[in-house]
């Protein structure tokens, strides 16, 4: 294999943390959801790389399942965004206080 698996891990980690940063720093719920998609894809990349390294297609199957879950997650997340912000003037997650303890 021409590319060391460590490089895939590094790439995946960087992408993952970019996603983390997006979730943490952005207040636009849509961009936060997209950051989450980024994290999913970082994880998928790792699955793929390890499946290739181990020559075991369980990793690919799992990545497939992740894609499915990601689709479900995106659908529900967007539904929540829509239902939450339909009547609001602003779309800002900091303004949602329903979970306040």
């Amino acid at each position: 294999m021409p590319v060391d698996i460590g490089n895939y891990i590094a790439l995946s980690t960087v992408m993952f943390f970019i996603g983390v940063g997006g979730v943490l720093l952005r207040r636009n719920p849509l961009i936060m959801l997209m950051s989450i998609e980024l994290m999913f894809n970082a994880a998928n990349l790792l699955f793929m790389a390890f499946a290739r390294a181990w020559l075991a297609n369980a990793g690919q199957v799992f990545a497939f399942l992740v894609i499915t879950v990601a689709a479900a997650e995106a659908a529900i997340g967007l539904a929540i965004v829509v239902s939450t912000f339909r009547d609001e003037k602003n779309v800002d997650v900091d303004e949602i206080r329903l979970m306040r303890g």
Partner: protein
Amino acid sequence: MSGGQHAMGVDGSYPLLIALWLLPLGGAILCWAFGPQLKTRAGWVACAAMAASLFLTALSWGAGTQAAGGLLGAHQALLSWIPGSFDFGLLLDPLSLLWALIITGVGFLIHFYSMGYMDGDRAYARFFAYMNFFVFAMLTLVLSDNFVGLLIGWGLVGLASYFLIGFWFDRPSAVAAARKAFVINVVGDVAIMFAIFAIVATVHSTAFGDAFAATGAYGPGLLFAICVGLFVGAAAKSAQIPLHTWLPDAMEGPTPVSALIHAATMVTAGVYLIARCAPLWDASPSAQLLAGSIGGLTAIVGAILGCVQWDIKRILAYSTMSQIGYMIMGVGVGAYAGGVAHFFTHAFFKAQLFLAAGLIIHALANEQDVRRMGGLRTKMPFAFWAILTGVLSICGIPFFSGFFSKDAVIYGALAHGHPWLYAVGIVTAGLTAYYMFRLLFVTFLGSYRGDVDPVELGMRGAALPPAPAAGGHAHAHAPAWIMNAPVGILILPTVAIGAALMAGGEGSPWARYFAPQFAAQTLPPAPISEIATSLIVLLAVAAGFAVAWQRYAAKNAQANAVVRLRDESLRMPALLTNLFYFDAVIDLLFVRTSQLFGTLVARVFDPHVIDGAVRELAEIARSTGTLVRSLETGLLRAYALILAFGAACFIVYYALAAGGLR
């Protein structure tokens, strides 16, 4: 089981035992359950139960004294818990037969007497229920063939005693006395329990026969410990120093109770226990020395304290304590037949003294202070003669019952090699004569002082007896025949039973009766013969009588009785008025320390440790809640950050602790 010592009865059942054992319980249940319906008939029910039990006991004489195949008495198995090592059963051998006879016989007379004494009491039926229950408990104690049954009876008589001392539960003093008696008795119960533990741990059986079969199995240290445990129990029940303080207070109970429980039967349970466990004591000379010494000490201390009491029942209570000291001394040093003989005669004459005192108390509307009596000889001649015979008997005047048994104990102490106890016994005999004649003289001679101002007599205001209970009778009226008859019947054994049974030394019926029970003893001849001992004792008694006569019965003393009594009351040394400070010392040693400990717990441990822990837990929960609540910002991104932070912590952990990712 050497030398004719038998602890297990002849094999085979003897169902009569169950009947005589359970009859008083049946009477108690009847009186208790149907008291309101029975009313005064409760007394007759109780007496009938007692009479039947007495009759059956007398019928069992032959069975109880039979000896066959090395076994003595009659045995009836009841139930087997752990076969071979833990069986309940009833055993009637000469020792328990004697006790059973006294319990049912004297018990019957006192029940009969109570019908007169308790007449008009609000809780007439309850009284008889308790009395019958007591008799049942006492029979359980003496008829049991194993230690556990004995301990059950031991506890039950303590319970019955508690009920009866506190019978007039509207008197705070009676309640306090009942509680005191119960608590001190429980100390003894626990000690016996530990002794039983030690026995069971060694011989793996609770039966008397197994426990006594091989006394060598225990080893001297453990045997001494067992004997001490048993003796602490005996001391608590039999009012031996230092566990005696409950007995004088127990006089708060009705007089028949004092006669039956706190003179004739229950308080002698300690004597029974030591006599029953004779093989153990024989094998442990140091335990014998302990028991004999405590007995002698109790005898003389009780006698001294009896000399300074004014309450007629308390005088008799200290006298009881002193006489039980004699008994314990006797059985303690190994003179079992003598000690048991003193129990036997004491049961009669002390019951008689108490019942006769009860006649006076009843007639004087619950007046118990002898200073407010006086001159009763002409008003109550029957009581006078009854008390006189009792006094003569307890003093050991020749040919009265007490003469034989007391001299047997005193001589036994010398014969078993305890000259000091011998001397103590003689001194005590003199003191006994003094305080008993003092009681007689002050009560019956001179003129009646009931109308004299109590302060004139040196009585403190607080020492006044409680107001007469409900149903108090008119002044100095003649008691009914119901009360006189038992006293009259008791005069007979008080005077004559000693001469009838115990005269004649080794060949007497008494000695023959107990010959198979206790191991035969060969003793070196005592330096002072039995006849000489009797003479010395008589000398001491004469001295005591002379002092009492000079102080209370001489013409001059009778004329100035009021002044002299006041002087004696007021000039009494503090040591004696405070009863040698036994209560104070016990109070200081146990009550105060536990109170202090309790206070410590209540003031420091409880609020700061227990409550503190609870409060701190609540505080921790609250502050944690506040802390966590501050995390619950409702800010979505903060939650995400916490998640990421946690994940990062995992990574750092693996990087540092788990050896890195490489």
